[in-house]
């Protein structure tokens, strides 16, 4: 029932983000990580005009990357965070998450990159 209400809200009010966020939380907490990708992807691709709160863009980026990492798409998660970091280079939280997902990935070269980035995180 609650899920249906959220789906209806997402269809009827596509520019309001609360239903998308609650849907993500519901799927993520239920460990349905593939389902949790959908609402965040939709929210991430929306125009920046709807982000009346500047922090919302950061939240959506981080949650989307989290879902990507849980579905073993580590490279995509790292790319997404890298792009967001270029937009806001003062947010060192992005560096931490980049290093975190790079370390979790099965690609060896990313492991070396993550060590360097963790060192950079300690310096900043």
């Amino acid at each position, binding site marked *: 029932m*609650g899920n249906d209400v959220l789906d209806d809200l997402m269809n009827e009010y596509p*520019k309001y983000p*609360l239903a998308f966020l*609650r849907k993500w*939380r519901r799927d993520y907490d239920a460990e349905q990580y593939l389902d949790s990708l959908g609402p965040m992807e939709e929210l991430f691709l929306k125009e920046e005009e709807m982000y009346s709160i500047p*922090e919302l863009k950061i939240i959506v980026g981080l949650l989307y990357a989290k879902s990507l990492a849980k579905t073993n798409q580590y490279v995509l998660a790292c790319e997404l965070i890298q792009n967001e970091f270029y937009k806001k280079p*003062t947010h060192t*939280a992005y560096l931490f998450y980049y290093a975190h997902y790079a370390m979790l990935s099965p690609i060896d070269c990313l492991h070396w990159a993550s060590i360097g980035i963790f060192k950079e995180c300690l310096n900043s």
Partner: protein
Amino acid sequence: MNNSQQTIQSHINSSMLSKNHYAKMDPGGDCLSSKSARGNLESSGFDLDKDTLDLIDPKDTRRKSFNAASGDESPFIDEEIKLENEGIDQEWEKFLQDAKINPKNSEKKIKEKAKISEKEKIKYYRSLVTKNIMKITEKKQDAIAPNFYSQAVNEHQMINEKDIDHSTFKKNINEILNIEIILLVLSRKLLHINLTSDLEIARWKKFLMKFLKKNGKNHEGLFGMSQINFSIGNHEVAVEYCKKAIESSKEIVPQYVFWKAIYLYFIYLNFKLDNIKSRKVPAYFLSCESAAVEALRQQPENLTIEYLLLILSCEKYQLKKYHQSMSNSNLRSPSNYASKIMKVNKYIGYISWAEIYLRDK
């Protein structure tokens, strides 16, 4: 100068000259300002003296609008000049020009306007008045009192905001959304520590530490410190600073009480997610509840507090299984809060009902 040219000049002058000139020329005052008297003026071959002719500006553009060939004089010329002097808008001038070219059309327009209901008329005239105010104020700001000017500008801006859909949407979404409600909907225990840049935190912390050394009991400085500690995840320190800010402020600031409830909720959430059986869980739950109830008393229309109370009342039933002390809680049922939110805002109302259904499951 032939007769027709003389009459033309005399008519132009009749509108331009002051009453003193007329008083000299016509001591009896028979010809003054009355349009009906102009015919007599023309027929009597009224000539101007040298002094009055010197007053005529040879570059006057009014002459061009004069139809010398037909000899017809515009009946609106007096009004037109007055209007120009007073700075009245172009709409009225257009109306007059139309009336000159096609007097029948202007009559039609007047008839059409007469059909419009009185309310619409009043609206139309008010819009004209505001336009004129704007024009005058733009030209002569010094001449008008500053309060009146600001009032006129505000009214104009308000009208614009209402007319544009995009701005009203932005306004609505701003009214509904804030970062606190997003954090409550997500209920992640440490997501908010990623939202502020480290540089900004370091800068503000340094500034506020210096500020509080000089003004130790300044409530704004103390609240700032509580916000910084919250944004780096030191929730308990944030609550302490917030309590100090509430104590040191002479009047109760509703925002401080509201944020105290938010800080306490995140402390409770941290303890609950770590170990739900911990004794600290009901202690922080109850203190969060009392802070939220106090905040709602200060801000009865704040939807974020209502939503916080709804979450707490949902979790109350879950915690009752582990802690007996939860019976001290005086929270109402979640549906009560959801229906209250629904009355104020439908969108957050539906989100609240979804929250209840999802937790029931």
